[in-house]
């Protein structure tokens, strides 16, 4: 696939990934990713018609346990690693 990697595209991808890049970073990443993605586009040559995707390499099957309550962290423990908490909950930034 031919893709035009430019500063607009990289800026957009960064925004989707919740990263704010400086103009200098956008410039640098655009150049580097043009080279990387250009090279990786060679995968087009490989014939993958009728080939199934592999999401992992060893043919694992889904493993489920019985839906029973088990021991887990207490609310206090779960909150012990942050300073952003209130009334037994995580306190986050404004949602709206």
């Amino acid at each position: 696939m031919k893709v035009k990697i430019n500063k607009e595209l990289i800026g957009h991808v960064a925004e989707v990934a919740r990263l704010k890049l400086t103009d200098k970073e956008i410039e640098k990443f655009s150049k580097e990713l043009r080279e990387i993605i250009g090279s990786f586009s060679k995968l087009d040559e490989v014939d993958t018609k009728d080939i199934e995707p592999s999401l992992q390499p060893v043919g694992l099957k889904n493993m489920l346990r019985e839906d029973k309550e088990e021991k887990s962290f207490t609310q206090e423990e779960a909150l012990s690693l942050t300073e952003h908490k209130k009334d037994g909950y995580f306190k986050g930034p404004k949602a709206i």
Partner: protein
Amino acid sequence: MQEFIKKIRNNEIDIVEHTHKVINECKKINKEYNYFNVISEDLALQQAKELHKKIKNNDKNIKNKKLLGVMVSVKDGICVKNVESTAGSKILRGYKPLFDATVIKKVKDAGGIIIGKTSQDEFGFGSFNVNVGLGFEIPKNPFDKQRSCGGSSGGAAGLSQVAEFPHIALGESTGGSIVEPASFCGVFGLCPTYGRISRYGLIDYANSLDKVGPLGKSLQAVALLLETISGFDRNESTTINKPIDNYTDFINKKIKNMKIGIIKEAFVDIDKKIDKKINEGVDKLEEIGVKTEEISLKLPIKHGLATYYILATSEASTNLAKYCGMRYGVSDKLEGNFNEYFTKVRSDNFGPEAKRRIILGTFARMSGYRDAYYIKATKIRTKIVDEYKKMFKKYDALISPTSPILPIKFSEIEKLSPLQHYMMDIMTVSPNVAGLPHLNVPVGFVGKSPVGMLITADHLEESKLIQLGSVFDSQ
């Protein structure tokens, strides 16, 4: 190592005194080489004291402890309860896990003493351990401080080479991060079959590729740790529920009727001096009756690299979405709306390579590009696995160099573009994409630089790697 464990068990060596000495030694080593992000002095001494009590009281469980008194270093990305575990990233500064990873629990149960968290590229994103997180130190090669340790388990490999006390390292590999640094530091490093060892408590890079595995100066030590930490884990749904071999029994086990394929494409663009050393290694195997043949492995060598980087960064970009300065790790003042807050914490605390890989992976999964990159790579992965599987119908193992280059100077790394940096993983990415066990075997030196030979076997055939590798284990 068995002799040492016996002496600890019989209290001929005082375990607490020994641990004190080791911790002091680690501090000295760290000043010189930067192999640790944290030295876990309190934990190590607490473990030593508890074991000492049991030894003195002739506790009946002591004789079953396979790693009694052996010092185990842990790659930073593996969670150790109450010890800062950052995976080498500033965004996880201050994170002290509330639990032990399964492998840590197993090491502790076996009497192994945790001495600290070793240096790595941030989240494992690198081949030379220079992509450490903001504010972290870069580890130096044990044979030449101007050169790299290899990555991303660089601290683990470097420490394995310089430690004079009985020690084994826990490392982790996504695309070659165990065998590459093992090769640069002249030690053994074994990356197991995907799912052989639990990833519960491992800070993810890419879930379908990550494997925890041992590194050590002797293969005996590597086999011992492998035996201790392998196996099914009900906390980890991708572990394989199949029997574990007694890997240490395969050290120096007589080799009969083994046939090995030498991957011809892997020798095309490499340093001739590396070529020569690998051939000497192959000669050594032939001398004990191993049959060898040249084979061709086109797809893995030609397209393994792009396949790996697309899969790994796609998975990494989703895994790293959870770091947003709220529940653990670094945080900031709660200002702005959630998008602004998360964006600020992430932009301030991820290093440049983490940002690069997040962008690459996000791109490869984005609507419009997903089929051409991510989905395409998952299909090529199927073909790569098939190509290896065909080979393993005829051959017991495959051989290539571990790295196309000798340990590289820091000044030369600076000149590499990110793509050139990625290309140094050419030998190791495909066994990782296919989830195959592989072992770095030190086969000699070119000048002061160690050379490593890569042996790859079929799924769950770690024993064969140990059997073949022990031909090169002088300890």
